[in-house]
């Protein structure tokens, strides 16, 4: 035997289930009056600096069916690449949003500002991206992925560089579809499967 490590173990995840909206987006599911409004309605406030963008997409399962019951959370830097709480961060950017797939069409939508490149340890620079966390019935542990933007300079992004199968990089690229409008579809499993992250 050896000395024990003096660490605890993370609590195991469980699926958020089909009724995640009750706890996380109660107004969305018709439960009014408990909270004044749902948390994470917008990642930006009036006056946020930067380019306004709208991202829309679907989440497809292995059969190509668009999920109607998933919830997504997003977290991002401001237009200058600073996160809320960091020195000089834009006070009008909270950075956090929560949104659900539409119960009829399955489409989700995020209105925000385009984040700037982010500086990390050792002088690394991450191309503009929005971190996503996806939960739903059938997803036993929340799925992490990222939205990058087609057309940006991705040559030195350390995460994208780690993707061995280069065609899979495309699964992390939002595609432009008009002025300030982007599309980002997520494929949970099978052909065109999105790159999911463990970091």
């Amino acid at each position: 035997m050896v000395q024990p490590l003096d660490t605890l173990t993370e609590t195991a995840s469980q699926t958020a289930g089909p009724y995640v909206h009750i706890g996380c987006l109660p107004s969305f599911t018709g439960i009014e009056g408990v909270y004044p409004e749902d948390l994470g309605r917008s990642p930006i406030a009036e006056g946020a600096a930067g380019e306004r963008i709208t991202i829309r997409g679907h989440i497809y399962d292995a059969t190509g069916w668009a999920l109607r019951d998933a919830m997504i959370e997003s977290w991002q830097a401001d237009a200058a690449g600073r996160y809320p709480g960091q020195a000089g961060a834009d006070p009008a950017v909270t950075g956090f949003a929560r949104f659900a797939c539409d119960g009829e069409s399955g489409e989700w939508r995020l209105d925000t500002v385009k984040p700037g490149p982010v500086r990390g340890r050792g002088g690394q620079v991450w191309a503009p991206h929005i971190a996503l966390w996806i939960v739903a019935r059938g997803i036993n542990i929340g799925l992490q992925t990222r939205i990058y933007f087609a057309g940006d300079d991705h040559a030195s992004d350390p995460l994208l560089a780690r993707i061995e199968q280069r065609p899979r990089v495309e699964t992390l690229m939002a595609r432009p579809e008009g002025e300030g409008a982007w599309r980002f579809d997520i494929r949970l499993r099978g052909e065109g499967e999105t790159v999911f992250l463990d970091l």
Partner: protein
Amino acid sequence: MSGALRPRRREIHPRPYDPAYKTSVTRAPALPLLSMESTPSEETGPRFGHSLIGPRDADLIHNFTGNPAIGERIRVHGRVLDEAGRPVPETLLEVWQANAGGRYRHVKDGYTAPLDPNFGGCGRCLTDGEGRYEFMTVKPGAYPWPNGPNDWRPAHIHVSVFGHAFGQRLITQMYFEGDPLIARCPIAQTVRDRAQLDRLVAPLDMGESRGMDYLAYKFDIVLRGRRRSVFEGEM
């Protein structure tokens, strides 16, 4: 900014693909996750202040209409810690659950058990300076769900925790001591490691119960920790 997050120990979590939980078969990634050291996107995260929390947010018995919900009155309490055993203070915890009959207030829930007009089913609170939290609610009922021919969920409360970093984000479920349905539930059993599943089962805590008022259950939660920073001032 603080150091990198400790890598997630995926083996203690449920298997993403588990044929006994049928929906996971079409929704679990087939390809390996891309693993690397956390970055600022995972090491920072949203923070919520006390101004968010209303006076009845943590009282699910009364927070829907003001009139009390029907059911066994319980107090759920515990601490949120990180893997180093440090409390996680001032972090947002959200809960949701079925009513005492096992019915959710949700358009998609068609179980025959009735809605309770005075039970909404959601609550939230911030942990205090020592990572402690508590809420009052009614014990949820077990409910059937379409999976196998006769699958029932054990009584459970869904729990969502933020921590201080987006990479710590966790949703789990709290079960109740002594429930025979836990061993029969395909969702609970997605956690293959028995010791880890046991940690999702809250013990009855008579010491924190109150006579003629409520029973207490204790549920501690551990979030991912940070690696100690080797090079001070590097970032």
